[in-house]
């Protein structure tokens, strides 16, 4: 368990964040300029702070200079040493689990290359391997995918998932992309102008209507964990979640495996009656748990679906016309193609 308590006054805002990071991936989410990078630079010891206490399992890391903290750091821009080969880069910080990590990240074919000849995705995988081979006690990832285009992102994401599933160290993952967060992180810390505004397990925070203003209406949406029931011939996958069975796009996971699905709030349609003759495949019986008048023309509706919670975003006009009120039983309709899913294990 990594415990962080950092405070620093900048011209524009004050960074003031105290939180715990358990093993696994904790996302640090927030708009640009909210202090995400400053926060993890402070943890690594690269940023002088007014107050900086970082302890790992009771050991005070903040008393040590950066090179003795044993913290792995992966930068947005990879920062590979241009005058060394990939293998020399990988070994710079140590040779912990060398063969395993090279295999995990698919680096075998790159070892003799120089950084200048790598694609962005390859460079980022090497940077990740280099941090891992130093045998870190903590891993900090500063938007490792944000400099990559969509295909490169898709290339690196599975490696990050494998890493999450195979290592047991605390990892902080800075991102402003909710799709990445929903796919990778177990915990989330949301920063706004240097302050923590929401934090907790991803599934709880992302289905909490009160957290929507901080996450942004575009990015709001519940994350559900479910079990793969089976794959249909037409390419869809049936996933049993706490909210009920959902058809998700594409062949995902293997039967019996665990997957995570993300249901964006703006892609959930509400209906008073059980709809018939619709193209949507996913129709869930739900109970309204919250109706939140946010800013703007939208209303965020919290839904209890079995054991799980979902979020829906509808217009004020619809909310008024339907007379949505807490406690009522209605139906939530989710278009299959709107659901994003990812393998968990």
């Amino acid at each position: 368990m990594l415990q962080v308590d950092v405070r620093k006054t900048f011209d524009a805002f004050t960074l003031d964040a105290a939180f715990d990071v358990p093993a696994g991936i904790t996302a640090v989410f927030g708009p640009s300029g909210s202090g995400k990078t400053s926060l993890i630079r402070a943890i690594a010891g690269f940023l002088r702070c007014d107050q900086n206490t970082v302890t790992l399992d009771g050991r005070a890391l903040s008393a040590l200079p950066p090179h003795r903290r044993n913290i792995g750091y992966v930068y947005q821009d990879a920062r590979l040493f241009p005058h060394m080969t990939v293998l020399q880069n990988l070994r710079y910080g140590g040779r912990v689990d060398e063969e395993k990590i090279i295999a995990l990240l698919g680096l075998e074919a790159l070892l003799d290359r120089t950084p200048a000849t790598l694609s962005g995705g390859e460079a980022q995988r090497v940077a990740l391997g280099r941090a891992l081979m130093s045998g870190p006690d903590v891993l900090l990832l500063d938007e490792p995918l944000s400099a990559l285009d969509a295909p490169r992102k898709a290339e690196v994401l599975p490696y990050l998932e494998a890493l999450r599933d195979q290592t047991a160290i605390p990892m902080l993952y800075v991102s402003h992309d909710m799709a990445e967060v929903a796919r990778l992180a177990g915990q989330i810390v949301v920063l706004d102008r240097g302050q923590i505004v929401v934090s907790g397990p991803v599934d709880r925070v992302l289905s909490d209507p009160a957290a929507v203003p901080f996450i942004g209406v575009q990015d709001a949406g519940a994350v559900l964990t479910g079990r793969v029931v089976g794959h249909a011939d037409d390419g869809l996958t049936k996933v049993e979640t706490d909210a009920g069975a959902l058809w998700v796009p594409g062949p995902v996971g293997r039967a019996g495996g665990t997957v995570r699905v993300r249901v964006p709030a703006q892609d959930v349609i509400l209906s008073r009656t059980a709809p018939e003759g619709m193209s949507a495949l996913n129709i869930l019986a739900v109970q309204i748990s919250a109706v939140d008048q946010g800013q703007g023309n939208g209303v965020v509706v919290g839904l209890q679906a079995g054991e799980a919670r979902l979020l829906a975003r509808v217009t004020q006009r619809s909310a008024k016309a339907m007379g949505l009120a807490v406690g009522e039983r209605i139906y939530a309709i989710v278009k299959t193609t709107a659901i994003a899913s990812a393998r968990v294990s």
Partner: protein
Amino acid sequence: MTDWLGPAEWTALWLSLKVAFWATLFSLPVGFGVAYALSRGDFWGRQALNVLVHLPLVMPPVVTGYLLLLGFGRTGPLGEAFEALFGLVFAFRWTGAALAAAIMGFPLMVRAIRLSLDAIDPGLEEAASGLGATRLRVLRTVTLPLAWPGILAGAVLGFAKGMGEFGATVTFVSNIPGQTQTLALSIDTLLEVPGGEPLALRLAVVSIAIAAVALMVSEGLASRAARRRGR
């Protein structure tokens, strides 16, 4: 071939090479230290150091030479200290010519090294320390290899400047054949001797050739460094 220059001129050429070599050898580590401090350091007096380093570039060389005479002359405070501590005498010796050459070449050397240090992404050094490298290891494995072409270029420039130094040298250690009469001083002497002009011209050709080769090497190293960093 040996008749092409007279024995005095060969001596002058050899002396110039010796003076420039030792001047470069001793000023290079200092030059790197100063360049590193100017590029990476954030300390009080940084601007003053920058001005001090560049002064010999803009001051009249005769003033530099005069200051050296005051400081490092037989009775100068630094001159006495060096003689007492190391038995090293600068006044009217080739060592003094080397000192003058080192001082005059220093700004050029520091400038070249500093430019190459400025071009290194400090993020790479940070990444190295994040991977557990001490300051010294970062310097040795990241900073120095990446700055290497600039350091060599600085050394070449300093060497070339040392070969041709005139004003500060003649003021500080005078023009003594076989002792302090370097290439430039030798040319000056020949021009004042009747019939010395053809020899002076040959020496001029030699010094132009040395300067041109040095500049070419320096430019080549600089562009190699640029290519290496380019993605």
